[in-house]
Every structure is written in structure tokens, then in C-alpha cells.
């Protein structure tokens, strides 16, 4: 059997709109039989925190404040015109009205279709996070070498 097509995405941004791009590509590619690998680093880690809201998680005072301010998946800001968090709510309403999948729907679809989630070891150290702070779907905490090996032979995107 021919090897599966493969899409690997480095998810660095923690912006709402870029998260939509990540999970649209991930769920779409998985649905057309691609192997999909998502590698979350820095602000991208906010998308895969176990707690969707704001919480003082992580090791060390500064890291805990940082993680509280950054928040989780339900608190992602729009990259432009965020208006203190009002815009992502309005945008989600607009998407629902127009029958376009919302971020939670795309996120759940990506999980249901077997997308592989990985977290960046270095960024986790900086933000004082452990794998226990992340959703259980995260398969492994990786470094650059493992990511390069995993993405070899496929398409790689940086979002």
C-alpha cells in the first residue's frame, strides 16, 4: 500500500483566527486521508491546555501569571480588532449563522479524525508546563529533531 500523504503544522500562534486556520487544515486534511501532525509551541500551547479558560497553572510565580494572562482555548484573542475579547465571540456567532464550522467544532473534528498532537518541550519548560497541564490527546512532548523526523517526506506549515 502506498504511503499516506502527510501534513505537519508548527502551531506557534495563540491567535483565534490562526487557530481556526490550524484546525481547518488539520480536520480537512485528516478527512481526505492525510496523516496530520500538529506541533504546538509557545503561544500555540494555549490551544491544547486542559483548562480552556484562565487559570494559574505552571511552575513558578512568573509562569503562573503568564499562563493566567494567556488563558486557554476559550480565551484566544483575534489577531486584529480583538476589542478585549469581544470579537472572537462575535466571530463565532457569525460563523454559526453562516453555517461555517466554529473553532470548537473544528477542534473536536480534528480529534475525532485522529490528528496527532505534539507539544514542544522547550516552550513547555519556559512556560513551566507539564504534559499533565495539556489535553490527554497530546501524544508526546517533542524537540526539533523528533519533529523534523516526524514531518520528513510530507508538507510542513508554520502558523
Amino acid at each position: 500500500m502506498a504511503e499516506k500523504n502527510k501534513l505537519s503544522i508548527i502551531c506557534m500562534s495563540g491567535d483565534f483566527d490562526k487557530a481556526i486556520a490550524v484546525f481547518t487544515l488539520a480536520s480537512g486534511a485528516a478527512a481526505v486521508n492525510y496523516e496530520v501532525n500538529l506541533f504546538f509551541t509557545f503561544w500555540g500551547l494555549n490551544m491544547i491546555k486542559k483548562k480552556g479558560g484562565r487559570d494559574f497553572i505552571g511552575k513558578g510565580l512568573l509562569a503562573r501569571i503568564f499562563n493566567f494572562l494567556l488563558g486557554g482555548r476559550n480565551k484566544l484573542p483575534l489577531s486584529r480588532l480583538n476589542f478585549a475579547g469581544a470579537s472572537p465571540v462575535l466571530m463565532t456567532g457569525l460563523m454559526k449563522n453562516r453555517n461555517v464550522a466554529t473553532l470548537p467544532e473544528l477542534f473536536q473534528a480534528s480529534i475525532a479524525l485522529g490528528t496527532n498532537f505534539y507539544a514542544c518541550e522547550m516552550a513547555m519548560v519556559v512556560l513551566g508546563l507539564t504534559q499533565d497541564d495539556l489535553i490527554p490527546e497530546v501524544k508526546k512532548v517533542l524537540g526539533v529533531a523528533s519533529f523534523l523526523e516526524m514531518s520528513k517526506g510530507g508538507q510542513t506549515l508554520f502558523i
Partner: protein
Amino acid sequence: MKTVTLDITKDHCPMTFVKTKLQLSKMEPGDILEILLTTGEPLDNVPRSVVEHGFQVLEVTPVKDNIHKVVVKR
């Protein structure tokens, strides 16, 4: 063998493929899936994605304005 109908005429990319894939994964080999979809992106790509998974497209027929029926064998 059972036949299931999936209406994705109101959905957009990527949920057209996603719903098709999730429905097919719930079905048994030999089952039939009738997909109602719109012309354009869904009609161009949903049948192709189904074939990519190794399933068989038995029929593609226009139903009414802008809507087609794609019959797939799991």
C-alpha cells in the same frame, strides 16, 4: 447492508469532508451512503476524498438546481 443518507448541502469546507468521513467510519463494509451536496467545491472534492479512502463511488446524479446525489459504497 444498510443505506444512510447524509445531507451536507448547508455545510462548507472542511465540514463537508469531515462529516462524510465520520459517517463512513461509523458504517460497515458494503453499506451504502447517499450524500446530498452542492456543486462547486463539495461536488469536485467529496467524491475524490471518498475514493482516496478506498471506497467506491457508484453514482453521481443531479437532484435539483445546484444539488447532486453521490452514492458511495463503504
